[in-house]
């Protein structure tokens, strides 16, 4: 027993120390952001840099709360990793010369793609474009549900005025509204057409939860309900059935389509000369740009549900996405061909009858020369 006692004490002490470590670490993580915000929540907090310019050190917690980092549990010191401890008694609780946040420590693939982009290459000309120039410091947006306009306004349009460089582009404003810049300017990136349900009565995009509630289903069973043949993709018929089901529940709307780039590291590889002026690469029914069509639902909990849809739905009247040639309604062509063929047939029949009756008229003229 005497031999066991020190062992027991050591084991207990180790366990207590281990638990204390976990508790301290957990507490530190849990309070970390709050501690930071004690100072950085003050919108008058500034510092004066070496050139005498004032920099704000304020962090808008409301915006940070909805940022992609906070949503994924990334706290202040995960990025500002050189803050090992805070001395709350000091005037500034941490070093005033913090290192620049290295986004690449987590986003290594993005860093590689970005290194080979026109934006990174601009550093040779003395123009440094760090990640936060586009993504902002703390309210780094979640983009899966972002519209083309949100994506462009948050990124490319901050610096670029597309009107200056697209004079040649027919219906350019329409392209800017429906197609994300990187679809053309980073053509390596996978892209898809996002279809979102727009309620015509309330003039708003309906949340996925609202649609599911109306259909009496939930996130788990929604797709099983609409994908009747279980092939993991909505056919045109299944898509039309979904519209009908919604109409039966008094929900009237259309699916608003936009051509967007995948949230993929390679989207950062934007280079000069990548976009071309060959309109037919998009504007044809066989275009690769419209292979991937998705019904995208924005859920109330901030998540996004996305379902594969057959590209043929782009040719229906339930989708507002209109790309010349690509989304043409085939029925109109059948009607058109019938009209033209009918016109030609009538002409040919009439002409044949005219030719066949020439002897008749000639005879009449001979018999009645004054007629």
């Amino acid at each position, binding site marked *: 027993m005497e031999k066991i006692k020190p062992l027991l004490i050591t084991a207990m002490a180790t366990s207590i120390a281990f638990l204390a470590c976990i508790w301290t670490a957990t507490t530190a993580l849990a309070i970390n952001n709050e501690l930071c915000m004690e100072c950085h929540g003050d919108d008058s907090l500034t510092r004066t840099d070496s050139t005498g310019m004032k920099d704000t050190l304020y962090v808008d917690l409301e915006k940070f709360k909805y940022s992609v980092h906070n949503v994924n549990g990334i706290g202040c010191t995960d990025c500002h990793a050189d803050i090992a401890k805070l001395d709350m008694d000091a005037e500034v609780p941490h070093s005033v010369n913090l290192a620049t946040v290295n986004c690449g420590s987590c986003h290594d693939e993005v860093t590689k793609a970005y290194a080979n982009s026109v934006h990174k290459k601009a550093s040779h000309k003395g123009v440094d474009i760090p990640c936060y120039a586009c993504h902002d410091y703390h309210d780094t947006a979640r983009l899966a549900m972002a519209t083309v306009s949100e994506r462009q306004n948050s990124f490319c349009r901050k610096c670029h005025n597309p009107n200056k460089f697209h004079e*040649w582009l*027919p*219906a350019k*404003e*329409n392209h*800017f*509204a429906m197609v994300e810049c990187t679809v053309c300017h980073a053509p390596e990136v996978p892209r898809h057409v996002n279809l979102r349900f727009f309620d015509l009565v309330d003039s708003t995009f309906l949340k996925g939860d609202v649609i599911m509630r109306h259909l009496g289903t939930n996130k788990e069973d929604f797709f099983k309900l609409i994908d009747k043949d279980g092939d993991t993709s909505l056919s045109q018929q299944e898509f039309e059935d979904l519209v009908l089901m919604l109409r039966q529940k008094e929900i009237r709307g*259309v699916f608003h389509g936009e051509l967007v780039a995948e949230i993929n590291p390679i989207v950062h590889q934007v280079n000069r000369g990548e976009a071309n*002026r*060959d*309109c*037919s690469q998009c*504007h*044809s*029914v*066989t*275009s690769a740009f419209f292979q991937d069509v998705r019904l995208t639902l924005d859920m109330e909990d901030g998540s996004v549900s996305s379902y594969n849809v057959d590209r043929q739905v782009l040719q229906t*009247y339930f*989708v*507002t996405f*209109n790309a*010349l*040639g690509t989304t*043409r*309604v085939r029925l*109109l*062509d059948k*009607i*058109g*061909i019938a*009209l*033209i063929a*009918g*016109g*030609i047939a*009538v*002409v040919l029949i*009439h*002409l044949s*009858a*005219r030719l066949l*009756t020439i002897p*008749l*008229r000639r005879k*009449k*003229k001979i018999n009645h020369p004054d*007629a």
Partner: protein
Amino acid sequence: MSREYVHPAPVRVWHWINAFAFILLVITGVQIRFAEMINFLSLEDSIRLHNWVGFIVIADYALWYIYYFSTGKIRLYYPNLRTFAADALKQAKYYGCGIFKGEPNPHHMTADNKFNAMQQKAYVGLMFIFLPAQIISGIFLWQVKGFENYIDMLGGIRIVDTIHVLLFYFFAAFMIAHTYLATLGHTPLAHFKAMFTGYEEDH
């Protein structure tokens, strides 16, 4: 044989500009709609040409409108409501039967009575409904973003596109029928000649 001046110069100018513009619009329209099947012009050039020619048609329509209304000749297009149905039937009977037997055309073309009852019906629809609808839908498709509100009022871009495409096919079919009907003068080329000289020959 007598000659009558039935196609004044502004009408002839309007007609031939319209005819060539329509041919160009049909060709470029087909290229735009079926880019994956046809490749005689790049899509960019087709769209640019289609837009420019579209504006020529609009200007030409304005010429027609101003000429016909300012001279009061627009009355040529108004059907006589009392005799219209009977005249149209008579004309249809002529085209469907009488023409083969060598019967005379029931309509006698003069400067004041240029169109037969069937033409009046067709042209009133064409010039006051179909062509304006095609022009308006074309303008909306030219600047979708700029006319977004009007497009939404009409039911969305797909509806406007449908109107434009159906009318495109209609006009394409019309041009075939119109060209054929123009061969039904006293000689196959008589009406074509008249549309250049202004004079219709009456036999």
